[in-house]
């Protein structure tokens, strides 16, 4: 696996999709920003004003080493302090399925940002369905690689679920891109036919109605 990672590691495919949606020079906050791959890319390629929230000290250190502004803390708490419309984009990448209260978080995101970008692994993917159906076990896939007792993914949702959630809660989906990625998520392609069955991830640009 290490041989596949080059010095000039390209941005993960789902992050490339997100980056393509962000206007140059805008204000962006990344919730659960990890080691700041996306924010660093946006800062250098799109001259955004970046902020990140990350709970793990070592990752925060990595971000700051890269010159990013990052606050160590819990995303569910940290979002409360910002005034309304502080950011142009609030990004929650592959974290929604780990949030205890997704509704409250999305409401906060749409309060502090004009738009929000949310991505998550699709539990409706055929491999997930097939595993449950054929083996009777909780599914383990490249995108969902955890045993039931060790998984951080406490919210199980599919592409269809998120669309229904938007209708039910009352926010607008401005863009939807569903993707299928390779095992390392480095490359991928956009899925247009039967996304709830065939896409590994859903990526959404949303706003208040």
């Amino acid at each position, binding site marked *: 696996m290490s041989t596949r990672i080059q010095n000039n590691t390209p941005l993960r495919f789902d992050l490339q999709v997100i980056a393509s949606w962000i206007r140059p020079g805008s204000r962006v906050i990344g919730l659960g920003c990890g080691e700041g791959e996306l924010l660093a890319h946006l800062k250098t390629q799109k001259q955004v*004003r970046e902020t990140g929230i990350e709970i793990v000290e070592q990752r*925060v*250190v990595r971000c*700051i*080493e890269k010159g990013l502004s990052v606050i160590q803390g819990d995303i569910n708490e*940290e979002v409360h302090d910002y005034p309304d419309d502080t950011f142009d984009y609030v990004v929650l990448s592959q974290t929604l399925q780990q949030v205890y209260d997704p509704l409250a978080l999305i409401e906060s995101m749409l309060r502090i940002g004009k738009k929000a970008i949310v991505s998550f692994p699709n539990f409706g993917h055929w491999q997930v369905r097939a595993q449950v159906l054929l083996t009777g076990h909780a599914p383990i896939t490249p995108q969902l690689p955890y045993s039931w007792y060790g998984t951080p993914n406490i919210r199980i949702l599919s592409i269809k679920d998120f669309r229904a959630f938007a209708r039910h809660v009352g926010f607008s989906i401005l863009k939807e891109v569903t993707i299928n990625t390779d095992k390392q998520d480095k490359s991928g392609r956009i899925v247009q036919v039967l996304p709830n069955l065939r896409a590994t991830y859903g990526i959404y640009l949303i706003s208040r109605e």
Partner: protein
Amino acid sequence: MCFEFLLDMSEYITHDQAGKSVGKVEKQFFTFAQPPDEMMLDSGAKLGPITLAYETYGTLNRDKSNVVLVCHALTGDSHAAGYYSDADDKPGWWDNMIGPGKAIDTDKYFVICANVLGGCMGSTGPSSVNPETGSPWGMDFPFVTIGDMVRAQKALMDHLGIKKILSMTGGSMGGMQVLQWCVQYPEMVRSAIPMATTMRHSALAIAFNEVARQAIIADPNWRNGNYYGGKKPDLGLSVARMIGHITYLSDEAMRRKFGRQLQDKTDLSYQFDVDFQVESYLRHQGAKFVERFDANSFLYITKAADYFDLTRFENANSAVRVFSMAMARFMVISFTSDWLYPTYQSREMVQAMKKGGLLDVSFCEVEAEWGHDAFLLPNQRLTNVVRGFIDSVYQDTK
């Protein structure tokens, strides 16, 4: 072995393992506020002339855009890095942070550190001579505040022709000065790293300082501050230092390094002499401290730290409003085991910055077992964030 290390840990200063150092440095002096143009203090009193002792490391670049101002803590001084002479057994107090190739890289930056107003390491303080009487000020020295210390440092910057500070940093009371600078002279501070510090003392912090002050005041040698030329209140000052030291460590650090181990004994002595290693350590710290520090300075500076309340700057009465005056990029650092200025106090600061609309704010709670004094100890993560932060601010100026 462990214990020897701790004995040497009093100031946490050791020679750089890799031998990197700014080398020989010199203490310099700047005198200003000559009567009748004395400096107006926050208390309303006037003070002048004022001397600041300071040191610089590295080279000021042509457009004076590479200035890093370092502020020292309660009992620190201007000697932040390097050596005064070849015979010195220890470098300055933050030598692990400041030097060629280090986090605050003297190959790139011009670093300044001044002894605070009210101090006793070369700057004007209660042990200085009152020009009106020809004898030391003692208790006639006017009260000074963190704001006054910063005002004096501003005079030094003016003297050096520096209009913009690339980055300022300091731990503990040094961090208070950093915060004060950011709101008192916001247009001068590009970026700031307040470390292990607070917007204002908790009752707990004031309480420890008060016990320390009372130890000095209760020493019969203190004589209302008029002890210069006679016996000094060494006992009181050493007890004050012992109290301080307890607050600078942590439960975990003390448990791990001392536990209940006995000092040069195999059994309890049933005497009020030293039984435990921790007692020996504290006495050693106290005894060493009185050789270098003035008791009256200790009284004045602890009071300044207790009086400090950033949220009341210019009667704002709101941390959010105060931070909305600041223009700096911030990186706030706290340490997990700091119980003097615990992480929640740094979080309050960060919260106020966010509410005040500051966007360029970073915050990191560094994992450290050493308690409040962790900022003085070598720590790779601390080094990395300080280096990354200052370098990126410098990059943005180009």
